[in-house]
């Protein structure tokens, strides 16, 4: 159905049936920036009000994971760690991957967990996953501090670690992880909104993805001819860069980083497109 736009009168808002590919309103997100802030604050306060163990859990989780990896992959399987102490090697991977995985799992549930509020009031839906990506930073921060403690311990002990000025790009690494986690998260949330059974595949999928990423092994053990293939996984370059800056070991090449950034942007845009389409009439499918 085509209706001529009324050009004489100016309307503040025109509600149409969903049409066009992409109608994410950036100005609107800016207008709702206070909401993003308040959502972050809400999640932060409720999290700490509800569980005393909450922050502690953030500490225990990466430590246990690192220990398990150290024993299984380091001691039993004896996978190379490019010469760095296995414990700090696995910890770097776990902490960096942890941020991405949290972003991904949190944002991928956007529609399902917020169905009741989305059904009753309009606000740009994207504010919810954005706030979750930010709130996940707190978790990362705690784990990162633990990581730094261990890092300095190993440095003090004189282990073969070259902390270098690449660490300055940490914010950029985090930004890319946030964008990737957000992009893939909202992409999955758009799919799970329609096809609920995909939710069950999520945890499984995140785990598989981790093993496809050099978290428990260095990129250097991947045969040269498969490195480009590995680089198609945007997390490969992110984890390797993280380790390169803090531990000084990596076989990442500049081309891998460029591929990773391009794929991140592509996934993010696809996620946004799907999300902006689904958010319109998601309520009808609940």
């Amino acid at each position, binding site marked *: *159905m085509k*209706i001529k736009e*009324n050009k004489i*009168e*100016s*309307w*503040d*808002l*025109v*509600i*149409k*049936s*969903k049409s066009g590919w992409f109608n994410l309103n950036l100005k609107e997100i800016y*207008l*709702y*920036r*206070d*909401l993003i*802030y*308040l*959502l972050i*604050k*809400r999640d932060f*306060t*409720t999290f700490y*009000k*509800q569980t005393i163990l909450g922050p502690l859990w953030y500490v225990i989780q990466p430590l246990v994971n690192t220990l398990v990896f150290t024993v299984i992959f380091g001691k039993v399987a004896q996978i190379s760690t490019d010469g760095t102490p296995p414990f700090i090697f696995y910890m770097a991977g776990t902490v960096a991957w942890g941020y991405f995985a949290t972003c991904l799992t949190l944002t991928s549930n956007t529609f399902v967990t917020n169905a*009741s*509020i*989305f*059904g*009753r*009031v*309009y*606000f740009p839906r994207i504010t919810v996953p954005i706030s979750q990506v930010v709130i996940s930073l707190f978790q990362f921060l705690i784990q990162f501090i633990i990581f730094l403690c261990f890092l300095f311990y190993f440095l003090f002990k004189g282990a073969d670690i070259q902390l270098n000025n690449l660490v300055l790009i940490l914010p950029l690494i985090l930004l890319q992880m946030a964008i990737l986690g957000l992009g893939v998260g909202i992409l999955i949330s758009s799919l799970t909104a*329609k*096809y*609920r*059974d995909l939710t069950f595949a999520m945890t499984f999928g995140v785990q598989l993805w981790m093993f496809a990423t050099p978290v428990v092994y260095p990129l250097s053990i991947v045969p040269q001819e498969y490195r480009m293939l590995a680089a198609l996984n945007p997390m490969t370059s992110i984890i390797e860069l993280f380790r390169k800056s803090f531990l000084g070991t990596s076989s990442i090449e500049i081309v891998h980083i460029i591929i990773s950034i391009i794929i991140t942007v592509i996934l993010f845009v696809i996620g946004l497109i799907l999300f902006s389409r689904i958010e*319109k*009439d998601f*309520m*009808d*499918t609940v």
Partner: protein
Amino acid sequence: MTIAIEIESLVKRYRLGVIGHGTLYRDLQSWWANLRNKEDPNSKIDSIENDQEHILALKNINLKINEGEIIGIIGANGAGKSTLLKILSRVTTPSSGLIKIKGRMASLLEVGTGFHPELTGRENIYLNAAINGMNRKQVSKKLDEIVDFAGVKKFLDTPVKRYSSGMYVRLAFAVAAHLEPDILVVDEVLAVGDAEFQKKALNKMKSVSQQKDRTVLFVSHNMESIRSLCNRAILIDKGKIISDGKPEQVIETYIANNLKNTKLHHIWKDKNTSPGNDIVRLQSVRVFQSEASKELLNIDVSKEINIEIYYWMLKDGQRILPRIWVNNSFDIAVFESCNVSPMSKNDDPLFAKHLESGLYRTKCTIPKYILNTGNYLVSIIISKYPFERGGGYLVFEKNLISLNCIDNSDLSNFGYYDRLRGNIRPQLLWETSKQKIQSDL
């Protein structure tokens, strides 16, 4: 007058049934076909209106709403009122058609949306306002007003999970009402609060619209509040606007529509399923005036109205109280009556007697010149004796009979052409006499 909202051929189609079961493949297929501008292999050739997978909640709605209007939207459950509000407040999108809106809109579709139980009242005010598009600065300015209106000053820093439901409703409404939107959309949320709060909320909505030409859209089943608040009403039935105009007219149409099926004569053939329970069941209800046999269309208020109730007493030794409630067309009570002596002119011989089982008849006569012109609804009730406040109903047939009353008296000879004012039209005693002038002055 400027237009605040313009709705053009709005259609909303819902898909029925389970979604997501094996549809991923089909959706991809349709999507791929769409992308190449080919025909969707999964589209149905049936008419859109009545295929089995879809339901039309709104069918071609066209509406222009002026700035400053307070519009009441009425209609039966499932008529499409809430769907319309949901599309207006952008919770969902139309299937086709267009809505153009001027100004900022806030909606209150459900009380306490977005309230988090763990957060304090203050935190929730900010969060809820932000969800509705207000920034922190604006809220801070309004905070005192909101708190005052909601009356939760003492509990401002208490988590809302400890609030009473009344406080919850008040706070939620207060936030929405103080958002200062140009357009306020309110679904039937006020039904939750107590009477005093409802009054306060209605007044607030009225003042909101009067201050700065704000537009209010308001869904309610309470005809009285629609009538007192709105200056225009819209009746939606089965996804279409069937009446639009002054609230009184629209409400009349709504009631009249509801009553299409209401007859003056009801008979229940089956003794086992007719209204009632295992103590008493209705057999028939009939309304007649003097010519007992004639099928009545209109009730003449200048004659007595007889309501006859036949019912089976199914157990021995029961004591019952036959009652009627009479409401006007706005469903507001006009009067009630039963056969206890202070309410009955005569002494009902079987009043409060232990009845043996069998068929009984109770006749109630409404004297002439009680009802006014217009529609009245009569509810037939049989309750236990002795009277139990608000309970003990054995039969409760709400608004079973509709009386369409006309006034055949020759009022027009005296220049009265309109309906007389009021719910009742009593004949009173009047006496005028010339007074002797006292010579005091």
